[in-house]
């Protein structure tokens, strides 16, 4: 641990906090353009957060302590997840704290808390959303683990920083297993971030919503924290995908020049990724909830195939 590492770590966390709502705004902008609507400004999510932070939270009479603490836990989990994913530098003091498998655990912890909080309040929507969230979660987690196992096998390490420096350091090779893993990871990210084939982030229609049903009872700063955490989760998943499958441009441990270029490269990659996400959301329709297991089973299958292909071809 040195001063450089701490600086890089702080920069990365600050970047995540600022860039996550911007990414959300960018995706919304692209989607509006693709649907021939006038786009809201890029910083619209900041306006939303600002408004929510100023409002007084209203809490139901029968809300327990879990309901009050859940937003902070979820926000903390997502911020930590963003902190351990190498976005601009692989020299991160926090990276040894959690490896790729613990990252899945972090997401799982956040999911557990938000589901418990939704059930805590006792409304039917809350428990409906919680059950759906758990259904999607328990199907998405093994698929995500399979993807991470494959990449860990390739880099022979489960530490994210080591994986990224291994992948970006070695000379250009085509790895078919990574292609499978990339498709599987995209599918899992869509499901986990409540995006279109599984859930529609813009809907409040009671029959279809998952994520919105969970947070229906939240207001004020609690809601702001949860919205921010959702943006951070999208940011974490995008950055993890970029770091694992397009690791070029991430600065190595003692490379000062690369550090300067890392930020614009990352922003460029995120802009392209956000546009592709909006494109996927525009061209595909939301699935019935009972088709979700099929979708995620396919992701799991691709993860397993990636593992098998890696073992067979050694690539």
């Amino acid at each position, binding site marked *: 641990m040195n001063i450089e590492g701490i600086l890089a770590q702080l920069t990365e966390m600050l970047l995540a906090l600022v860039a996550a709502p911007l990414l959300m705004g960018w995706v919304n902008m692209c989607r509006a353009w693709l649907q021939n609507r006038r786009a809201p400004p890029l910083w619209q999510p900041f306006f939303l957060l600002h408004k929510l932070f100023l409002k007084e939270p209203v809490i139901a009479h029968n809300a327990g302590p879990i309901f009050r603490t859940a937003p902070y836990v979820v926000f903390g989990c997502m911020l930590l997840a963003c902190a351990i994913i190498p976005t601009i530098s692989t020299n991160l003091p926090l990276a040894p704290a959690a490896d790729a498998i613990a990252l899945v655990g972090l997401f799982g912890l956040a999911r557990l808390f938000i589901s418990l909080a939704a059930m805590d309040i006792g409304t039917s929507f809350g428990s409906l959303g919680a059950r759906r969230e758990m259904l999607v979660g328990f199907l998405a987690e093994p698929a995500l683990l399979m993807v991470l196992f494959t990449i860990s096998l390739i880099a022979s390490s489960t530490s994210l920083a080591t994986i990224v420096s291994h992948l970006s350091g070695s000379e250009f090779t085509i790895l078919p297993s990574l292609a499978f893993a990339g*498709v599987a990871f995209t599918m899992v990210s869509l499901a986990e971030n409540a995006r279109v084939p599984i859930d529609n982030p813009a809907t409040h229609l009671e029959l279809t919503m998952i994520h919105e049903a969970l947070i229906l009872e939240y207001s004020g700063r609690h809601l702001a924290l949860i919205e921010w955490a959702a943006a951070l989760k999208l940011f974490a998943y995008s950055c993890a995908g970029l770091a694992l499958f397009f690791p070029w441009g991430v600065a190595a441990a003692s490379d000062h020049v690369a550090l300067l270029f890392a930020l614009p490269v990352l922003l460029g990659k995120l802009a392209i990724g956000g546009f592709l996400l909006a494109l996927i959301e525009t061209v595909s329709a939301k699935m019935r909830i009972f088709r979700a297991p099929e979708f995620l089973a396919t992701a799991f299958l691709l993860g397993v195939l990636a593992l098998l*292909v890696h073992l*067979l*071809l050694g690539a």
Partner: protein
Amino acid sequence: MSAMTGQIVNLFAAILLLIAFAMLSQRRILSLINLFALQGLALVGSTLTVAFATGQKHLLYSAAITFVLKVIVLPYILHRLIRRLNVKWDIETLINIPTMMLVGIGLVVFAFNLALPISHFSSSVARGTLGIALACVLLSFLMMITRSKAVPQVIGFLAMENGLFFAATSATYGMPMVVELGIALDVLVGMVILGVFMFQIREQFDSLDIHHLEKLKED
């Protein structure tokens, strides 16, 4: 023969496997045909890669034959067939796709294990892909078993031939030209005969469901 060639062939092999799984889970007949054409295209790509890497002239010819036959002619015939049979927008009810996928994974593991000792004898650049070719063949078999309509079964049959062809080019640098021409002709003629056959089935039973063929005589 560089390491890069092997990697490109491996990539095409992975794409073939991916398309085989996509075909297994595809409900729409129209998309099935497009996937079949795409698989043919991946096959052409891998054949061309091997041809340029090894400098074998006849592989170029076979790539050309594959392109004409499997990317243009057969999909065109199939498209016309489903238009004339009026099954273009048909959606087949497949039971339990996740289970079928799991069976498919089992088949892939089986094929990889089976091919592992064989590929040790091969000196070809892409000997690891033999397992993938075998897996493609088995997955096409699975597709033929699980489908009940006639057109998807025919597509399964054609996809199986794709897998065999891929095994031939990647493991042994292709079959002799005579054999290849014979197979190409066989597939084409088979397609024509099966097309006629499908019209007959529909005329007899008013549907393309081959379960009607299980009864030998009318009650």
